Structures are given as structure tokens and as C-alpha cells.
């Protein structure tokens, strides 16, 4: 379904964000991409739909090599890839319906979209996904009038209305409270199962990733350092992905004890070494 081969990205500043990443995702498979800030998670998913141009390597969606595409070909390929964003990235001043219909722009001519005259089939699609994500009551509200959870569901609806083969999800829960985060993750995984959608989910929250995503890929400094089941995320693996830290802190009973010796242990060790 999606095959990433030896993908590398070096930014003009000289930072190597990705150093030869290879990855394969089957139809209907959903993977969690974890790693520290700056590990290249965002760059990786943006290289797939070419919001960022990779320096070398190849990305295949089915048989199509996405890295070779330009202009119209690239736009047609992007129609098959839905993307969901961290801060929702809705067009704030447009209505919910306009935001959802913007997912059909790749299939619509300029003047039709300018006059917001979308084909009836697209409008039907939009209503169906809005019903699925539970936003039928908010169709004509402006996006900036919604709550965080509702906005993210508009974001999901916009991606779904494309009827994509692949979903790229960039930190879907980073701006949401814990309850809404779980609801959004549940909705996402359910939708992928219903539609046999492949998905790459960038996620900061390891616990949430383990709850909802069966396969986890760990990225560290632009390289894949773990690719396996969520259950395999031992403290050793987490250390390999994120670096040295006390990985036991997620335990429920230790919260109070933690408050006293919080902060990176490396610093203490450094001081001791001096």
C-alpha cells in the first residue's frame, strides 16, 4: 500500500531531518509514529504527500512513485491522501461545510469552487461524513466557533471526504484534553477499520499510542530505531527512542514522589561527574 524506501531529507539549513527511513504499510494498517521533538516525524509524513520535498529516497503509494510527481500528477496523488493536523488547520473563517467540502477541491474546477457550487455527489459525501463524525448540527457554523474536539472532527471529516487510501495524521491530540484525545483516537481507529484505510499517526503521547495503535514505529534523530508491536515498548526501547529518562513515571501511584525529583537525570549525573 505505502512503501517508503530509504527516504532522506536535509533542510537547507543543513539539518538532516531524515536519514534513510524505510517503511512499509499494508492496506488498512494503522501505525503510530513516535519519537522526540525534532526526530523527523512531521518531516516524514510531509515527505509522503510532498508538502516537504525529500532530498533522496522514494515513496510508493500503490504503484505510483510520489517523489517523481509534479503539478497535476502530484495534485491527483494528493487526492488519495487525507491529512489531519495538530492544530486542526481548519480555515477558521469558513463554515464547517466549506471546510469539509475543501476536501473535494482536487476533484472540483476552480470556478465551481469559487462560487461554492460543488456537485451534489460531493455534498452528499460531505453530509455522510459529517453525520459519521457527529457534526450534523453544526454544518453552517464557522469553524472558529467550535470547540477543540469538534474542530478536530471537522479536520477528520475533511480528510475522509476525499475518500483517500491513506491517512496522514500529525499529532491529532496535541491540542486536546485527555478525554477528547481518546475520543478522537477511537474515532480515527474505527474509521480506518471501517474503510480499510491505511494510516500513519504521529503521536507524542506514548500511552495513547499503546492504547489505540497496534504497531509502533519509533524515530530517533531521523532514523527508525523501533518497529514492532505496541506491547514491545519496554523502558529500554523507549530509552532508545527518546533518550535517558525515568520511564516508570507513568505509573499511577508514583505521582507524588515524582514531584520531588523531577527533571532530567542526566544533569545530576553531569554535575556529579564534574
Amino acid at each position: 500500500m505505502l512503501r517508503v524506501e530509504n527516504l532522506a531529507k536535509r533542510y537547507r539549513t543543513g539539518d538532516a531531518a531524515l536519514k534513510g527511513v524505510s517503511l512499509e504499510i499494508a492496506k488498512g494498517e494503522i501505525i503510530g509514529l513516535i519519537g522526540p521533538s525534532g526526530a523527523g516525524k512531521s518531516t516524514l509524513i510531509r515527505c509522503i504527500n510532498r508538502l516537504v520535498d525529500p532530498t533522496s529516497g522514494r515513496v510508493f503509494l500503490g504503484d505510483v512513485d510520489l517523489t517523481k510527481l509534479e503539478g497535476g500528477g502530484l495534485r491527483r496523488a494528493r487526492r488519495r491522501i487525507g491529512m489531519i493536523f495538530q492544530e486542526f488547520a481548519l480555515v477558521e473563517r469558513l463554515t464547517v461545510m466549506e471546510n469539509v467540502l475543501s476536501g473535494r477541491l482536487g476533484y472540483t474546477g476552480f470556478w465551481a469552487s469559487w462560487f461554492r457550487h460543488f456537485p451534489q455527489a460531493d455534498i452528499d459525501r460531505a453530509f455522510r461524513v459529517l453525520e459519521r463524525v457527529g457534526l450534523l448540527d453544526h454544518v453552517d457554523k464557522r469553524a472558529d466557533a467550535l470547540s477543540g474536539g469538534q474542530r478536530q472532527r471537522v479536520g477528520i471529516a475533511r480528510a475522509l471526504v476525499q475518500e483517500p487510501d491513506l491517512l496522514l495524521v500529525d499529532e491529532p491530540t496535541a491540542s486536546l484534553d485527555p478525554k477528547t484525545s481518546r475520543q478522537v483516537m477511537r474515532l480515527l481507529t474505527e474509521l480506518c477499520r471501517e474503510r480499510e484505510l491505511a494510516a500513519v499517526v504521529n503521536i507524542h503521547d506514548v500511552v495513547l499510542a499503546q492504547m489505540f495503535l497496534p504497531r509502533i514505529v519509533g524515530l530517533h534523530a531521523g532514523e527508525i530505531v523501533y518497529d514492532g508491536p505496541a506491547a514491545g515498548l519496554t523502558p529500554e526501547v523507549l530509552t532508545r527512542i527518546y533518550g535517558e529518562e525515568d520511564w516508570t513515571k507513568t505509573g499511577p501511584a508514583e505521582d507524588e514522589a515524582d514531584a520531588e525529583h523531577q527533571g532530567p537525570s542526566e544533569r545530576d549525573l553531569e554535575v556529579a561527574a564534574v
Partner: protein
Amino acid sequence: MRSIKARASATSKWRRCDAAQVQVRIRVRSESWPVNARTDTSPPPAAAARTWRPPRLIEDSRLRWAITIGVIIYLVLAFVTVEVNWARISEGFGRAMRLFAGFLQPDFVTRWPDIATGMVESLTMTVTATVAGILLSIPVALGAARNIAPLWLYGICRSIIAASRAFQEIIVAILFVAMFGFGPFAGFLTLSFGTIGFLAKLLADDIEEIDASQVEAIRATGAGFWQLIDFAVASQVMPRLIGLSLYRVDINFRESAVVGIVGAGGIGATLNTALDRYEFDSAAAILIMIIVIVMACEYGSSIIRRRIQ
């Protein structure tokens, strides 16, 4: 359910290695801390004497004073060299009184045909020049926004804006009058040109500050370039564009009165004639009408701006 169980088992696994880690950390930390840091709770004696002043822009106090005194001396000399001709001021004072007297008795009637023609000309000039200016400045603004346009186009469009902003309306008007002769056409061109410099610059700056993630999201759907501009850019800058355009309407009306003085038609020409003939009552009538129209524009645009937010 299954995933929760998996997490629980993982947590317990971590807990086992936790004890050793915590021990190591506590030991290391107690070694690195000075012993008295824990026992001696009184503040160090140096704390009482610590003072703080904001850092100075110029560290050297002699240089600082030299610059201050130098500036004062220059200002005094500069003001002294301004020639004030008191005789002419007292002469002009009489004229000023007549002007104010004219204000108290504005004469709309005597020169009404001239005033009406001038007003209509000015308003026509304002509306047409604003519309033409907006239509021209939108593409220039898109080209002058670095986050949309390639570098070469950016250079061209920023140059157009710079050229338009470099010259005051009067100078442009003199130029256009010389090129196309007296009359409102020169005024129309002047105001359109001025509108491009104003609107294209402010709009371009606004486009450069739009939320890039919205653009990214629309691009990710496979939208074409103009759809991208429509959905992701225009929707973000539209309130600003409308606000600036309305603001430009009253700037253009005021400017239309000014450019008339150099022969570019409109109410300015009528005003100039009235002043030349010392018909202060007619001049006052014209000024009052300009004030009323500017205020009406201001009020109208504030209502519209409030409604589009």
C-alpha cells in the same frame, strides 16, 4: 480491553527496574549538593547588598552626556535659524479672521454650480480610482507576498509598490497632468496609482502573516493554486482587505481635494479658485462639505468593518 491489559503489564515491568534507577539518582544527587545547602537556611550575607539597575543603551556616561548636550545645542540653533516674519504673520492674521468669519457664514449658493460640478467630479474620481486601485493592487499584493510568489515576481511587485509609495500624490498628479492634461482623468490615474502602493503593501504584509497551516491543509487536499488562494489565503485576509479598501475610500476622497489644486480636477480645483479670489465664504462651504463627506465615509466604513469581523 486488550490494550489496557498490555499497558498494565508493561507498567509493572518498568516498576521493577525503577527501584534501582531511583536509588542511583538519589545517591548521585546527594553527592553533588554542598552539605551546607541543606542545613544553612539563612540567606547569604551578600544578598542584602545586591542592587540592580536597568542596563543602559550607552554604557559610557561621558559619551551619553556628550550626545544629550549635543542634541540640545543643535535643536536650539535649529529653532533660532527659523526666520519668523512677524509683519507677515500680523497681515495674514487679518486674512485668517476673514476666513473664519467666512466659516461662520458659509456661502453655498453663489458658486453652487461650480461646487456641485467639483464635488461630483471628486466623488467620481474617488470611486473609480478606488475600484481600479483595488483591482490592480490585489494581483500586485499576491506577487509581493514572499510566502506565495517566487523571488523574481516578488522583486517586481515590491518594486511597483516602492515606486508608488516613493512619490507623494501631488508629485504624481503634477506628472500625470503634464502627461494627460488638466482634468479629472489625471486625478483618477494619480489616485489609482496611490491606492496600489497603499493597499498592495498592507495586503501583501498581511498575506505574509497568514496561518501557514491552513494553506498546508488545503494544499494537502490536492487543490490547485487558485483554489488555494481562494480557500486558504483570501478567506484569511478578506476582512483586512475590506477594511483597508474602505479606509482607502476616504483617503482617496481627501486626496482628490488636494490633487485638484495642481490641476487634476475635482473639488480641489474649485477650492483653489475660491481661495484665489478671496471668496472665503465659498471656500468655507467647500471645506464644510469635504469634512461632512469624510465623516460620513468614516462612519459608514466603521459600521461595515464591525459587521464583517
